[in-house]
């Protein structure tokens, strides 16, 4: 307590500055958190949070016992792993390449154009993907020309993950690179000057100045991504999958969505959300600890 008082005297202004932030998190995040209790209740909407009866771990058990539990878990993890390996580095590489563009006007054009897909509604984007991959779609034509047998790729489970991840990169690489470009711009130009004096070429500069300069943000975003391993948004998958590809495409969120269509199951959905959150949070803590050990960067 004494330490805190001393700290307060020393950093008085910081205490005042953080106050609205803390208040915000308390009111809008911690106060409503009681809602998570319905994971252990049989929540009936009009009865409210207090009156609904307790059921313990029933919803969790019913999910773990589900015939499809392991498949859903596996698909969710694998899809996220693919995203981690391919979608995550793509904007970093792209930002580095943009940074190497010579003409400043061309650079602007590239940036502005590549971020466009981010703004096109998912429904339209997925409609296009389906069209391009149809039997007579343009991508199918291209692949047939390259020697593939004519088929509808979206009907085959073995291609689903690739389609999902590649289209994800297509949609997000430009937008995702913005944050890294900003980080590159934050690097002190004197460092480049100095290294050029030492006779370093562009290649060496990328690896010795640019990359280390943006490492903090890369590491932080990587840790956050790890803490996201059990989440996949259901909207895009629902727009792209079909029972043929359930084997690889059906993930936790889509299954819950389909189940919820039949009756509103707030408790069940919340229980699965809690399960995902616990696993995600553990992964995040582990990743953060690991990163702290091997580098200076950590979330807290």
């Amino acid at each position, binding site marked *: 307590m004494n330490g805190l008082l001393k700290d307060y005297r020393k950093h008085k202004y910081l205490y005042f500055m953080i106050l609205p932030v803390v208040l915000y998190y308390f009111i809008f995040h911690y106060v409503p958190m009681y809602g998570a209790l319905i994971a252990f209740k049989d929540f009936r909407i009009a009865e409210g949070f207090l009156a609904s009866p307790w059921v313990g771990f029933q919803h969790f058990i019913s999910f773990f016992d589900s015939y499809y539990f392991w498949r859903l878990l596996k698909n969710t993890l694998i899809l996220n792993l693919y995203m981690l390996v391919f979608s995550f580095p793509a904007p970093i590489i792209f930002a580095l390449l943009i940074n190497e563009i010579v003409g400043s006007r061309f650079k602007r054009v590239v940036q502005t154009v590549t971020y466009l897909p981010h703004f096109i509604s998912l429904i339209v984007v997925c409609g296009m993907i389906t069209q391009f991959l149809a039997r007579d779609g343009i991508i199918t034509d291209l692949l047939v020309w390259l020697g593939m047998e004519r088929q*509808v790729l979206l009907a085959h489970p073995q291609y689903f993950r690739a389609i999902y991840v590649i289209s994800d990169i297509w949609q997000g690489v430009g937008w995702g690179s913005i944050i890294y470009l900003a980080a590159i711009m934050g690097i002190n130009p004197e460092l480049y000057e100095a290294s050029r004096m030492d006779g370093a070429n562009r290649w060496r500069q990328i690896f010795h100045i640019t990359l280390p300069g943006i490492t903090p943000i890369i590491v932080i975003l990587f840790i956050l991504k790890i803490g996201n391993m059990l989440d996949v948004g259901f909207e895009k998958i629902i727009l792209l999958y079909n029972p043929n590809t359930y084997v690889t495409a059906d993930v936790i969120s889509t299954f819950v969505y*389909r189940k919820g269509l*039949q009756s509103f199951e707030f408790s069940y959905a919340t229980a699965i959300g809690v399960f995902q959150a616990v696993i995600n949070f553990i992964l995040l803590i582990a990743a953060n600890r690991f990163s702290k050990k091997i580098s200076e960067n950590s979330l807290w």
Partner: protein
Amino acid sequence: MPHVQRKGWNAAIATVLGVSLLAAGCSTPQNNETPNAPVTNTQGNENPSAPLKLSYWAAMPGDAARLMKNYNESLFYQELEKKTGVSVEFQHPAVGSQAEQFNLLVASGNLPDVIEYNFTHYPGGPEKAISDRVILPLNDLIESHAPNFKKYLDDNPAIKKEVITDSGTIYSFPAIGVGNSNVSSGMMLRQDWLEELGLETPETIEEWTTVLRAFKEQKGATSPLTMTLGEMTGDRFVGAWNIGGSFYLDNGEVKYGPYEAAYKEFLTQMNAWYEEGLLDQDFSTQDNNAKDGKVVNSHSGAFISSIGSGMGRFLNAIPESAPTFDLVAAQHPVLEKGTEPTVFVAAYDFRGDGSAVITPANQNPEATAEWLDYLFSEEGNNLKTFGVEGLTYEMVDGSPIYTDLITNNPDGLTVGEAMSMYMRVATPAPGYVGDDRYNQQYYKFEQQKEAMTIFNQYYSNLENTRLPRVTQTADEAQELSSIMAEIETYKDEMLLRFVMGLEPIENFDKYVAQLQSMGIERALELRQAALERYKNR
């Protein structure tokens, strides 16, 4: 650093925080329960001279939402207010998200006077909504304050059975389908091709095979029969085997189509069509746009579609590449010539959607009931369906005919849009819907009118094969959804594997055994129990 700057910044933060607090303060009166505030639902009976003002929560259909901000802008509600003296303050959720907002509305407990919603979707059914104090039971009110609706129910006991709960409570002023138009979609073929090939519109599955084969071989159709996955799993071709794509009735017993022996024959036939290239190879992945494209481009000669948005749109946009393009509706298919189809897709007489209920928050339930009852009177129904004589319709030979304002709108509105602007006829709304006199005009092509007759010809057969609108209790519903989420996933996967030949049909018995181990028998029990309760209404 200059001192002034710092002060300015502090002030800026104070202002910002102030603004957000102010915001909270500003909007308080909206929901405040101060006695003096003119809150809509607190005008009690003690002041009968004051005009009744109701708050009314209702989802707008898309057509209406694109044209107005509020139902009060539509001619129908303006006229209704003039006729009844009741003014309405509408609350509208965004199109397509009424379910989310409805749930939150219920959870918050701040209910409007009237809610228009599909209460058959309420978890645990309408009876639960009554015990949750979301809706008022209406039996007494209807007895005393809703003569038109009461008369209708007394005259139509079959419909009364649909709109009441298992224990006999009337809970809503529902949208009731009148007229012979509950079946609004079905199979359609290229009439010009049939004529050219000298073929009749197919009735049996065998005839269908012949026609599709001819389309493929002689007309060069790459996907003679096209459909989407939803149409494959729904009560479409599967109905020819007298089973449903999901739960259906057989002699008073609930059955699950994909669990029946006949389903194997259906799968075998679909597989044969698929292998021969008669069935669209893309049916499992394509969306409606892709399907429509194939129809318009003559890649397909047969498809499943609705009369209005499907057939109407195709006939409106006859492609240059096929100037003879013409469509004909086919009767729902059967196995043997001369038999009647028994299972196909149709709306229930009691639409479910567009049912208006009175909430316990309503201070004037009697007056509200009278107001809603007006929609069930002939005058009210005419206003709702045809609008105002001389403006939106003219009486010609004793029947109302829409004027050009509706059918050929000077502002370039489509028929559907014009109808939404001036009436409430195109989508379910409290009162009678689907009036034949309306449909005959809404469907402007002869082929559409014929399609309506053909599709609805055997509607009465559904009485014995269609599961009525049964209600599961909240506990039952939860158990059922747990079982069915798995079963439907498995069934859909296997359906595709069988049809596409990835799984030999010999494995059908194994598939049935798997359904059994996933609990289909229990699901059938739950459905049967709900059906028994329904029968005893």
